[in-house]
């Protein structure tokens, strides 16, 4: 595996650690954006969110949420920003306390997209996000005994194979299947 400065630092434990468990670590960076800035990292080396297991993603965001709440309480912050920037480096979430006139500004300038551009973006994301709910539903269904496991597995196969143009039909079919 490639050498990673962050992995080395996590092992060295030289940083100011505010929280640590088997999977996660939260530190106060030596050069923070503001006093009380907390940096949270999964110990497992990854640079993209999808490389982490679902439960680890959940814990990571809860740790960020609680870091934000701690900063509100301990520093009397007026607000916080929680920012995760994916890059090619070790994944991290930064929780930054905010106060009036703190010199920080994370607000972007909105881009103007044409209605056609918005439509095309909308369609391509919908196409990719289409499976999310389905796969989750799959996982839940056997537990709820809504249908036998075998049937659920067959369905999974089916979902993977649906050609783009048949998606709508498939959705309708799924709906009509459920109506007795």
């Amino acid at each position, binding site marked *: 595996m490639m050498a990673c400065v962050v992995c080395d630092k996590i092992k060295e434990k030289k940083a*100011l650690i*505010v*929280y640590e*468990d*088997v*999977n996660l670590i939260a530190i*106060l960076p030596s*050069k*923070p*954006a503001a*006093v009380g800035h*907390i940096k949270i990292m999964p110990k*497992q080396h990854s640079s*993209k*969110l*999808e490389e982490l*297991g*679902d*439960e*680890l*993603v*959940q814990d990571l*965001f*809860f740790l*960020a*949420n*609680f*870091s*934000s*709440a*701690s900063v*509100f309480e301990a520093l009397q912050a*007026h*607000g*916080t*920003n*929680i*920012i*995760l*920037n*994916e890059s090619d480096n070790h994944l991290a979430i930064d929780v930054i306390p*905010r*106060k009036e006139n703190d010199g*920080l*500004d*994370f607000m972007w*300038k*909105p*881009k103007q997209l044409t209605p056609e551009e*918005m439509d095309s*973006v*909308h369609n391509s*994301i*919908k196409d*990719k*996000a289409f499976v*999310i*709910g389905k*796969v*989750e539903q799959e996982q839940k269904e056997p537990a709820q005994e809504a249908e036998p496991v075998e049937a659920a597995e067959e369905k999974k196969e089916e979902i993977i194979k649906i050609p783009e143009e048949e998606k709508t039909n498939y959705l309708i079919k799924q709906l009509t299947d459920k109506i007795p």
Partner: protein
Amino acid sequence: MVSEEDLQNMSPEEIAELQRKQCIFCKIIKGEIPSKKVFEDDKIIAILDINPAAKGHTLIMTKEHYPILPVIPLDVAAHMFRTTKYLVKSLKEAMVTNSATVFIANGAIAGQQSPHFLYHLIPREPDDGLDKFMIPANEFKEEEVKQHLSALKGKLGLMMREYKAKKGKEGEVKQAKPISQQDLAKFIDANPQVREAIINHPEEFKKQLEANPELKHMFVGINIDKLSMALKQIKK
């Protein structure tokens, strides 16, 4: 219109109800205001931001109206966070890029503009001009940086303990601990069915990994094809 005086006479519940009624995102969720939905289930919804920082800029929110993140029930927040991972993946695939930014603003000072808690998922590209999201590294005196360490440690430790107790799975996450290659070799030795699967059905095994995060985690950074070849050699 509700006057200042009316507001003062209202109970917190009544004020919350009024906020719900006037909330633009609640109206979007109910379908009273049009939006471009990219994902929806019983608890959460994701729509395109009409003032995007970049193409594909998406907002994710709960269907129920909550003004701030800490008041969202644990199971709903957990579902939203887990789904965030898949949505970010979908956004990146759709916009043909490999990075994204997740941006949360708590409080008006931090840029929270909506009384309905939501956060931003933004596909990123090299040189996309979104330098605003870069985390500044500022110089502070060491004492200043350290001054809140024990207070933060105490509060955060307590909140995480409570969270794990509520989640009721304190021990379970240990499975995801990174393991050494020696331990991985031991694991393969101890599980002949895994070894057979890697040797005889490497492609199937890769699919298995995708479906099982814990297993996938053990094989992070391992080239399954090479491993399959290596195990075949050893078998001979």
